[in-house]
Protein backbone atom coordinates (compact mmCIF):
# COMPACT_ATOMS: atom_id res chain seq x y z
CA UNK A 1 0.00 0.00 0.00
CA UNK A 2 1.06 3.55 -0.69
CA UNK A 3 -0.25 6.28 1.57
CA UNK A 4 -0.06 10.04 1.89
CA UNK A 5 0.21 11.14 5.52
CA UNK A 6 -0.50 14.64 6.74
CA UNK A 7 0.98 14.74 10.23
CA UNK A 8 0.89 17.44 12.90
CA UNK A 9 4.48 18.53 13.56
CA UNK A 10 5.27 20.74 16.53
CA UNK A 11 8.82 21.15 17.81
CA UNK A 12 7.86 21.71 21.46
CA UNK A 13 5.06 22.93 23.74
CA UNK A 14 5.70 26.60 22.97
CA UNK A 15 6.32 26.35 19.22
CA UNK A 16 3.61 26.76 16.60
CA UNK A 17 2.72 23.56 14.83
CA UNK A 18 1.58 22.74 11.32
CA UNK A 19 0.57 19.78 9.19
CA UNK A 20 3.45 18.23 7.20
CA UNK A 21 2.93 15.86 4.29
CA UNK A 22 4.82 12.57 3.92
CA UNK A 23 4.57 9.68 1.47
CA UNK A 24 4.97 6.11 2.76
CA UNK A 25 5.31 3.19 0.44
CA UNK A 26 5.39 -0.56 1.01
CA UNK A 27 2.82 -0.54 3.78
CA UNK A 28 1.42 -4.01 4.47
CA UNK A 29 -2.32 -4.28 5.30
CA UNK A 30 -1.30 -6.47 8.25
CA UNK A 31 0.76 -3.70 9.85
CA UNK A 32 -0.67 -1.93 12.86
CA UNK A 33 -1.06 1.82 12.54
CA UNK A 34 1.91 2.37 14.83
CA UNK A 35 4.09 0.00 12.79
CA UNK A 36 3.21 2.07 9.75
CA UNK A 37 4.41 5.17 11.65
CA UNK A 38 7.57 3.27 12.67
CA UNK A 39 8.23 2.70 8.96
CA UNK A 40 7.85 6.40 8.30
CA UNK A 41 10.16 7.25 11.21
CA UNK A 42 12.87 4.83 9.98
CA UNK A 43 12.83 6.62 6.63
CA UNK A 44 12.98 10.03 8.32
CA UNK A 45 15.92 8.97 10.51
CA UNK A 46 17.81 7.63 7.45
CA UNK A 47 17.22 10.97 5.74
CA UNK A 48 18.53 12.74 8.84
CA UNK A 49 15.18 14.29 9.69
CA UNK A 50 13.46 14.48 13.08
CA UNK A 51 11.21 11.42 13.54
CA UNK A 52 7.52 11.95 14.38
CA UNK A 53 7.01 11.75 18.15
CA UNK A 54 3.99 9.70 19.25
CA UNK A 55 2.97 7.93 22.47
CA UNK A 56 2.89 4.13 22.61
CA UNK A 57 3.68 1.42 25.12
CA UNK A 58 2.03 -2.01 25.33
CA UNK A 59 0.80 -2.08 21.71
CA UNK A 60 -1.86 -4.58 22.70
CA UNK A 61 -4.71 -2.20 23.51
CA UNK A 62 -4.59 -2.31 27.31
CA UNK A 63 -2.29 0.47 28.52
CA UNK A 64 -3.93 3.59 27.11
CA UNK A 65 -0.71 5.23 25.96
CA UNK A 66 -1.40 5.56 22.24
CA UNK A 67 -3.36 8.60 21.24
CA UNK A 68 -3.89 9.71 17.66
CA UNK A 69 -6.75 11.46 15.94
CA UNK A 70 -6.88 9.85 12.50
CA UNK A 71 -9.06 11.56 9.89
CA UNK A 72 -10.85 13.46 12.65
CA UNK A 73 -11.60 10.35 14.71
CA UNK A 74 -9.91 9.47 18.01
CA UNK A 75 -8.09 6.14 17.51
CA UNK A 76 -9.24 6.10 13.87
CA UNK A 77 -12.20 4.46 12.15
CA UNK A 78 -12.40 1.21 14.15
CA UNK A 79 -13.57 0.92 17.74
CA UNK A 80 -10.18 0.07 19.18
CA UNK A 81 -6.94 1.73 20.23
CA UNK A 82 -4.56 3.09 17.57
CA UNK A 83 -2.07 0.30 18.31
CA UNK A 84 -4.72 -2.31 17.54
CA UNK A 85 -5.88 -0.53 14.41
CA UNK A 86 -4.56 -2.24 11.30
CA UNK A 87 -3.77 -0.82 7.91
CA UNK A 88 -6.38 -3.09 6.30
CA UNK A 89 -8.90 -0.54 7.60
CA UNK A 90 -7.56 1.85 4.93
CA UNK A 91 -7.20 1.67 1.17
CA UNK A 92 -4.18 1.96 -1.06
CA UNK A 93 -3.67 5.59 -2.06
CA UNK A 94 -5.57 7.04 0.93
CA UNK A 95 -4.60 10.37 2.44
CA UNK A 96 -4.61 10.23 6.24
CA UNK A 97 -4.71 13.24 8.58
CA UNK A 98 -2.93 12.45 11.85
CA UNK A 99 -3.36 14.91 14.71
CA UNK A 100 -2.78 14.93 18.48
CA UNK A 101 -5.58 14.93 21.10
CA UNK A 102 -6.94 18.47 21.16
CA UNK A 103 -7.93 19.93 24.53
CA UNK A 104 -6.55 22.80 26.58
CA UNK A 105 -6.16 20.36 29.50
CA UNK A 106 -3.99 18.15 27.25
CA UNK A 107 -1.23 20.49 26.01
CA UNK A 108 0.90 19.23 23.13
CA UNK A 109 4.44 18.39 24.26
CA UNK A 110 5.85 17.48 20.83
CA UNK A 111 4.25 16.47 17.52
CA UNK A 112 1.54 13.95 18.44
CA UNK A 113 2.43 13.61 22.13
CA UNK A 114 0.20 15.38 24.64
CA UNK A 115 0.51 15.78 28.40
CA UNK A 116 -2.28 13.74 30.01
CA UNK A 117 -1.18 14.21 33.63
CA UNK A 118 -4.48 16.04 34.25
CA UNK A 119 -6.03 12.54 34.31
CA UNK A 120 -3.54 11.46 36.98
CA UNK A 121 -4.53 14.40 39.15
CA UNK A 122 -8.23 13.49 38.77
CA UNK A 123 -7.37 9.96 39.98
CA UNK A 124 -5.34 11.39 42.85
CA UNK A 125 -8.37 13.43 43.91
CA UNK A 126 -10.42 10.32 44.67
CA UNK A 127 -9.86 7.41 42.31
CA UNK A 128 -8.71 5.07 45.08
CA UNK A 129 -10.06 3.18 48.07
CA UNK A 130 -8.83 3.30 51.63
CA UNK A 131 -7.86 -0.27 52.44
CA UNK A 132 -5.58 -1.72 55.09
CA UNK A 133 -2.39 -3.01 53.57
CA UNK A 134 -0.91 -6.33 54.58
CA UNK A 135 -2.03 -9.84 53.76
CA UNK A 136 -4.92 -10.25 51.34
CA UNK A 137 -8.33 -10.40 53.06
CA UNK A 138 -10.39 -13.58 52.89
CA UNK A 139 -12.18 -13.53 49.53
CA UNK A 140 -15.68 -14.05 50.94
CA UNK A 141 -15.37 -11.42 53.64
CA UNK A 142 -16.99 -8.77 51.45
CA UNK A 143 -19.76 -10.21 49.27
CA UNK A 144 -20.33 -8.35 45.98
CA UNK A 145 -23.51 -9.14 44.01
CA UNK A 146 -22.70 -10.37 40.51
CA UNK A 147 -24.55 -7.51 38.69
CA UNK A 148 -22.60 -4.95 40.76
CA UNK A 149 -19.32 -6.71 40.02
CA UNK A 150 -20.15 -6.69 36.30
CA UNK A 151 -21.10 -3.01 36.39
CA UNK A 152 -17.89 -2.14 38.22
CA UNK A 153 -15.88 -4.14 35.72
CA UNK A 154 -17.53 -2.46 32.76
CA UNK A 155 -16.30 0.90 34.12
CA UNK A 156 -12.96 -0.53 35.23
CA UNK A 157 -12.22 -1.31 31.59
CA UNK A 158 -11.34 2.38 31.07
CA UNK A 159 -7.65 2.60 30.24
CA UNK A 160 -7.49 6.39 30.58
CA UNK A 161 -6.31 6.99 27.03
CA UNK A 162 -8.23 10.28 26.72
CA UNK A 163 -10.06 9.49 23.47
CA UNK A 164 -13.27 10.74 25.14
CA UNK A 165 -11.69 14.16 25.70
CA UNK A 166 -10.26 14.22 22.18
CA UNK A 167 -13.63 13.38 20.60
CA UNK A 168 -15.76 15.67 22.77
CA UNK A 169 -16.61 19.01 21.10
CA UNK A 170 -16.23 20.59 24.56
CA UNK A 171 -12.99 18.83 25.52
CA UNK A 172 -14.82 17.30 28.47
CA UNK A 173 -13.43 14.52 30.66
CA UNK A 174 -16.85 13.46 31.88
CA UNK A 175 -16.70 9.92 30.48
CA UNK A 176 -13.26 9.24 31.96
CA UNK A 177 -14.18 10.67 35.36
CA UNK A 178 -17.53 8.90 35.43
CA UNK A 179 -15.92 5.55 34.56
CA UNK A 180 -13.50 5.95 37.45
CA UNK A 181 -16.16 7.17 39.89
CA UNK A 182 -18.68 4.44 39.02
CA UNK A 183 -16.07 1.70 39.05
CA UNK A 184 -15.43 2.24 42.77
CA UNK A 185 -18.79 3.69 43.85
CA UNK A 186 -20.80 0.56 42.99
CA UNK A 187 -18.53 -1.67 45.09
CA UNK A 188 -18.66 -2.10 48.87
CA UNK A 189 -14.90 -1.44 48.98
CA UNK A 190 -15.55 2.03 47.56
CA UNK A 191 -18.40 2.87 49.94
CA UNK A 192 -16.48 4.79 52.66
CA UNK A 193 -15.41 7.47 50.16
CA UNK A 194 -18.53 7.28 48.00
CA UNK A 195 -19.46 10.96 48.44
CA UNK A 196 -16.06 12.60 48.71
CA UNK A 197 -14.80 10.62 45.71
CA UNK A 198 -17.32 11.99 43.24
CA UNK A 199 -17.22 15.54 44.65
CA UNK A 200 -13.42 15.74 44.67
CA UNK A 201 -12.89 14.09 41.29
CA UNK A 202 -15.46 16.35 39.59
CA UNK A 203 -13.92 19.39 41.30
CA UNK A 204 -10.46 18.38 40.05
CA UNK A 205 -11.87 17.76 36.56
CA UNK A 206 -13.22 21.34 36.53
CA UNK A 207 -9.94 22.64 37.99
CA UNK A 208 -7.96 21.08 35.11
CA UNK A 209 -9.94 23.10 32.57
CA UNK A 210 -11.95 20.34 30.93
CA UNK A 211 -15.30 21.35 29.44
CA UNK A 212 -18.75 20.10 30.40
CA UNK A 213 -21.10 17.53 28.95
CA UNK A 214 -23.65 18.57 26.33
CA UNK A 215 -24.75 15.01 25.55
CA UNK A 216 -23.23 15.05 22.07
CA UNK A 217 -22.32 11.40 22.65
CA UNK A 218 -19.00 11.61 20.77
CA UNK A 219 -17.03 10.28 23.75
CA UNK A 220 -18.88 6.98 24.02
CA UNK A 221 -18.61 6.49 20.25
CA UNK A 222 -14.83 7.03 20.36
CA UNK A 223 -14.14 5.01 23.53
CA UNK A 224 -12.08 1.93 22.59
CA UNK A 225 -13.34 0.16 25.70
CA UNK A 226 -17.03 0.84 25.14
CA UNK A 227 -17.71 2.83 28.31
CA UNK A 228 -21.40 3.74 27.85
CA UNK A 229 -22.75 7.30 27.76
CA UNK A 230 -25.07 6.40 30.67
CA UNK A 231 -21.94 6.27 32.79
CA UNK A 232 -22.08 10.09 32.81
CA UNK A 233 -25.72 9.98 33.90
CA UNK A 234 -24.79 7.71 36.79
CA UNK A 235 -22.01 10.07 37.84
CA UNK A 236 -24.39 13.06 37.73
CA UNK A 237 -26.76 11.12 39.98
CA UNK A 238 -23.91 10.24 42.38
CA UNK A 239 -22.75 13.86 42.43
CA UNK A 240 -26.21 15.25 43.23
CA UNK A 241 -26.65 12.60 45.95
CA UNK A 242 -23.23 13.42 47.41
CA UNK A 243 -23.90 17.18 47.59
CA UNK A 244 -27.09 16.50 49.57
CA UNK A 245 -25.37 13.99 51.90
CA UNK A 246 -22.32 16.14 52.56
CA UNK A 247 -24.43 19.24 53.20
CA UNK A 248 -26.13 17.39 56.07
CA UNK A 249 -22.87 16.54 57.85
Amino acid sequence: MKLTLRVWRQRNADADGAMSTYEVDGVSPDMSFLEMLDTLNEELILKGEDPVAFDHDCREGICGACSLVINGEAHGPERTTTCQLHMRSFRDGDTLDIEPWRASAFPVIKDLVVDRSAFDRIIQAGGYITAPTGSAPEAHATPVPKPDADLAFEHAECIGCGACVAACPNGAAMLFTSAKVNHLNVLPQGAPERETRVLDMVAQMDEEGFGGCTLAGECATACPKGIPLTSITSMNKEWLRATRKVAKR
Partner: protein
Amino acid sequence: MALATRTDRRPSLARTVWDSSVGKKAVMAVSGIVMLLYLVVHMIGNLKIFFGPGEFNHYAHWLRTLGEPFMHYEWTLWMIRVVLVAAVVAHAVSAYQLSRRDLRARPSKYVHRKARASYATRTMRWGGVILGLFIVWHLLDLTTGTVHAGGFQEGHPYQNVVDTFSTWYGNVVYIVAVLALGLHVRHGFFSAAQTLGAGSRTRNRALRAVADVLALLLTAGFVAVPVGVMTGVVS
Protein backbone atom coordinates in the same frame (compact mmCIF):
# COMPACT_ATOMS: atom_id res chain seq x y z
CA MET B 1 -2.45 21.44 71.50
CA ALA B 2 -5.73 20.03 70.28
CA LEU B 3 -5.83 18.90 66.70
CA ALA B 4 -8.87 19.66 64.57
CA THR B 5 -11.20 16.66 64.61
CA ARG B 6 -13.22 17.72 61.59
CA THR B 7 -11.01 18.24 58.60
CA ASP B 8 -13.66 17.76 55.94
CA ARG B 9 -15.33 21.17 56.05
CA ARG B 10 -16.80 21.86 52.66
CA PRO B 11 -18.48 24.90 51.11
CA SER B 12 -22.25 25.25 51.34
CA LEU B 13 -24.61 23.30 49.10
CA ALA B 14 -25.42 26.36 46.97
CA ARG B 15 -21.72 27.23 46.56
CA THR B 16 -20.82 23.65 45.59
CA VAL B 17 -23.63 23.46 43.05
CA TRP B 18 -22.94 26.81 41.42
CA ASP B 19 -19.14 26.35 41.28
CA SER B 20 -19.25 22.90 39.70
CA SER B 21 -19.84 22.25 36.02
CA VAL B 22 -22.07 19.31 36.97
CA GLY B 23 -24.00 21.44 39.47
CA LYS B 24 -24.45 24.30 37.04
CA LYS B 25 -25.82 21.83 34.52
CA ALA B 26 -28.33 20.77 37.19
CA VAL B 27 -29.38 24.43 37.54
CA MET B 28 -29.88 24.52 33.77
CA ALA B 29 -31.86 21.29 33.85
CA VAL B 30 -34.20 22.37 36.63
CA SER B 31 -34.79 25.87 35.20
CA GLY B 32 -35.36 24.29 31.78
CA ILE B 33 -37.96 21.91 33.16
CA VAL B 34 -39.76 24.80 34.92
CA MET B 35 -39.95 26.66 31.59
CA LEU B 36 -40.99 23.49 29.78
CA LEU B 37 -43.90 22.91 32.19
CA TYR B 38 -44.97 26.52 31.66
CA LEU B 39 -44.80 26.08 27.87
CA VAL B 40 -47.09 23.04 27.95
CA VAL B 41 -49.67 25.05 29.92
CA HIS B 42 -49.17 28.09 27.67
CA MET B 43 -49.64 25.98 24.53
CA ILE B 44 -52.87 24.42 25.81
CA GLY B 45 -54.15 27.91 26.74
CA ASN B 46 -53.30 29.22 23.26
CA LEU B 47 -55.43 26.58 21.59
CA LYS B 48 -58.56 28.19 23.09
CA ILE B 49 -58.25 30.77 20.33
CA PHE B 50 -59.95 28.23 18.03
CA PHE B 51 -63.13 28.48 20.13
CA GLY B 52 -63.72 32.14 19.49
CA PRO B 53 -62.96 35.51 21.10
CA GLY B 54 -65.37 34.96 23.98
CA GLU B 55 -63.64 31.88 25.36
CA PHE B 56 -60.10 33.10 24.64
CA ASN B 57 -60.59 36.52 26.24
CA HIS B 58 -62.38 34.96 29.19
CA TYR B 59 -59.44 32.59 29.69
CA ALA B 60 -57.01 35.51 29.56
CA HIS B 61 -59.03 37.36 32.18
CA TRP B 62 -59.27 34.26 34.37
CA LEU B 63 -55.45 34.12 34.46
CA ARG B 64 -55.56 37.45 36.26
CA THR B 65 -58.21 36.40 38.77
CA LEU B 66 -56.52 33.05 39.43
CA GLY B 67 -56.42 32.18 43.14
CA GLU B 68 -59.04 34.76 44.22
CA PRO B 69 -60.26 35.42 46.83
CA PHE B 70 -57.08 34.19 48.59
CA MET B 71 -54.95 36.09 46.09
CA HIS B 72 -55.55 39.63 45.01
CA TYR B 73 -56.17 40.44 41.33
CA GLU B 74 -53.07 39.45 39.25
CA TRP B 75 -51.05 38.28 42.27
CA THR B 76 -50.83 34.67 41.08
CA LEU B 77 -49.92 35.82 37.59
CA TRP B 78 -47.12 37.98 38.95
CA MET B 79 -45.80 35.11 41.06
CA ILE B 80 -45.67 32.95 37.95
CA ARG B 81 -43.89 35.74 36.10
CA VAL B 82 -41.28 36.11 38.85
CA VAL B 83 -40.58 32.36 38.82
CA LEU B 84 -40.29 32.40 35.03
CA VAL B 85 -37.92 35.38 34.97
CA ALA B 86 -35.78 33.66 37.60
CA ALA B 87 -35.76 30.48 35.50
CA VAL B 88 -34.82 32.36 32.31
CA VAL B 89 -32.00 34.23 34.07
CA ALA B 90 -30.65 31.09 35.80
CA HIS B 91 -30.83 29.15 32.53
CA ALA B 92 -29.15 31.85 30.45
CA VAL B 93 -26.40 32.69 32.95
CA SER B 94 -25.44 29.06 33.51
CA ALA B 95 -25.61 28.39 29.76
CA TYR B 96 -23.29 31.34 29.12
CA GLN B 97 -20.80 30.31 31.78
CA LEU B 98 -20.81 26.64 30.77
CA SER B 99 -20.40 27.55 27.10
CA ARG B 100 -17.44 29.77 27.94
CA ARG B 101 -15.85 26.85 29.80
CA ASP B 102 -16.55 24.47 26.89
CA LEU B 103 -15.04 26.81 24.30
CA ARG B 104 -11.95 27.42 26.44
CA ALA B 105 -11.49 23.66 26.89
CA ARG B 106 -11.19 23.12 23.13
CA PRO B 107 -9.35 26.17 21.75
CA SER B 108 -7.78 24.57 18.66
CA LYS B 109 -9.95 22.72 16.20
CA TYR B 110 -8.99 19.60 14.31
CA VAL B 111 -7.71 20.18 10.79
CA HIS B 112 -9.71 17.17 9.63
CA ARG B 113 -13.31 17.94 10.57
CA LYS B 114 -15.83 15.17 10.64
CA ALA B 115 -19.61 15.56 10.78
CA ARG B 116 -20.49 15.91 14.42
CA ALA B 117 -23.51 15.50 16.70
CA SER B 118 -27.14 15.91 15.67
CA TYR B 119 -28.61 19.18 14.42
CA ALA B 120 -30.57 19.69 17.64
CA THR B 121 -27.38 19.26 19.69
CA ARG B 122 -25.32 21.67 17.62
CA THR B 123 -27.99 24.40 17.61
CA MET B 124 -28.57 24.51 21.39
CA ARG B 125 -26.49 27.66 21.94
CA TRP B 126 -27.68 29.80 19.06
CA GLY B 127 -31.16 28.30 19.33
CA GLY B 128 -31.20 29.45 22.95
CA VAL B 129 -30.12 32.97 21.97
CA ILE B 130 -32.85 33.10 19.31
CA LEU B 131 -35.43 31.99 21.88
CA GLY B 132 -34.24 34.64 24.34
CA LEU B 133 -34.60 37.39 21.74
CA PHE B 134 -37.97 36.00 20.72
CA ILE B 135 -39.26 36.14 24.31
CA VAL B 136 -38.37 39.85 24.48
CA TRP B 137 -40.18 40.56 21.19
CA HIS B 138 -43.14 38.37 22.20
CA LEU B 139 -43.63 40.24 25.50
CA LEU B 140 -43.27 43.66 23.83
CA ASP B 141 -45.74 42.57 21.19
CA LEU B 142 -48.53 40.82 23.08
CA THR B 143 -48.08 41.65 26.79
CA THR B 144 -47.09 45.33 26.83
CA GLY B 145 -48.08 46.12 23.23
CA THR B 146 -45.01 48.33 22.77
CA VAL B 147 -44.12 47.00 19.32
CA HIS B 148 -47.59 45.75 18.44
CA ALA B 149 -48.77 46.12 14.85
CA GLY B 150 -52.08 48.00 14.59
CA GLY B 151 -53.51 49.43 17.82
CA PHE B 152 -52.85 47.23 20.86
CA GLN B 153 -56.03 46.76 22.88
CA GLU B 154 -55.55 46.02 26.59
CA GLY B 155 -57.86 43.17 27.61
CA HIS B 156 -58.58 42.01 24.06
CA PRO B 157 -55.89 39.37 23.51
CA TYR B 158 -57.87 37.64 20.75
CA GLN B 159 -57.80 40.71 18.52
CA ASN B 160 -54.15 41.38 19.38
CA VAL B 161 -53.12 37.87 18.36
CA VAL B 162 -55.01 38.18 15.08
CA ASP B 163 -53.31 41.56 14.42
CA THR B 164 -49.82 40.09 15.01
CA PHE B 165 -50.36 37.12 12.74
CA SER B 166 -51.85 39.30 10.04
CA THR B 167 -48.37 40.68 9.38
CA TRP B 168 -45.82 38.63 7.45
CA TYR B 169 -42.98 39.36 9.87
CA GLY B 170 -45.14 38.42 12.85
CA ASN B 171 -45.65 35.00 11.32
CA VAL B 172 -42.02 34.57 10.27
CA VAL B 173 -40.56 35.55 13.65
CA TYR B 174 -43.03 33.37 15.52
CA ILE B 175 -42.71 30.27 13.37
CA VAL B 176 -38.89 30.42 13.29
CA ALA B 177 -38.84 30.75 17.08
CA VAL B 178 -41.25 27.85 17.54
CA LEU B 179 -39.15 25.61 15.29
CA ALA B 180 -36.06 26.60 17.30
CA LEU B 181 -38.05 25.76 20.43
CA GLY B 182 -38.88 22.30 19.12
CA LEU B 183 -35.21 21.54 18.46
CA HIS B 184 -34.19 23.02 21.81
CA VAL B 185 -36.72 20.91 23.72
CA ARG B 186 -35.80 17.77 21.81
CA HIS B 187 -32.18 17.86 22.95
CA GLY B 188 -32.82 19.80 26.16
CA PHE B 189 -35.38 17.50 27.74
CA PHE B 190 -33.25 14.41 27.16
CA SER B 191 -30.12 16.18 28.43
CA ALA B 192 -31.90 17.48 31.51
CA ALA B 193 -32.96 13.94 32.37
CA GLN B 194 -29.34 12.77 32.07
CA THR B 195 -28.03 15.70 34.10
CA LEU B 196 -30.46 14.95 36.91
CA GLY B 197 -29.48 11.28 36.81
CA ALA B 198 -32.89 10.07 35.64
CA GLY B 199 -31.55 8.23 32.59
CA SER B 200 -30.38 4.65 32.39
CA ARG B 201 -29.72 2.08 29.71
CA THR B 202 -33.28 0.76 29.93
CA ARG B 203 -34.99 4.11 30.40
CA ASN B 204 -33.20 6.20 27.76
CA ARG B 205 -35.24 4.89 24.85
CA ALA B 206 -38.43 6.03 26.61
CA LEU B 207 -36.84 9.37 27.56
CA ARG B 208 -35.87 10.01 23.93
CA ALA B 209 -39.40 9.19 22.83
CA VAL B 210 -40.88 11.55 25.42
CA ALA B 211 -38.48 14.30 24.28
CA ASP B 212 -39.51 13.81 20.63
CA VAL B 213 -43.23 13.74 21.44
CA LEU B 214 -42.95 16.83 23.66
CA ALA B 215 -41.01 18.70 20.98
CA LEU B 216 -43.50 17.75 18.27
CA LEU B 217 -46.59 18.56 20.35
CA LEU B 218 -45.22 21.92 21.45
CA THR B 219 -44.18 22.84 17.91
CA ALA B 220 -47.50 21.77 16.39
CA GLY B 221 -49.57 23.37 19.17
CA PHE B 222 -47.81 26.73 18.95
CA VAL B 223 -47.61 26.84 15.15
CA ALA B 224 -51.35 26.08 14.93
CA VAL B 225 -52.20 29.65 16.03
CA PRO B 226 -50.41 31.64 13.26
CA VAL B 227 -51.47 28.99 10.73
CA GLY B 228 -55.05 29.36 11.95
CA VAL B 229 -54.92 33.13 11.42
CA MET B 230 -53.22 32.81 8.02
CA THR B 231 -55.79 30.32 6.76
CA GLY B 232 -58.68 32.40 8.07
CA VAL B 233 -59.87 29.79 10.61
CA VAL B 234 -59.19 32.44 13.27
CA SER B 235 -60.14 35.99 12.31
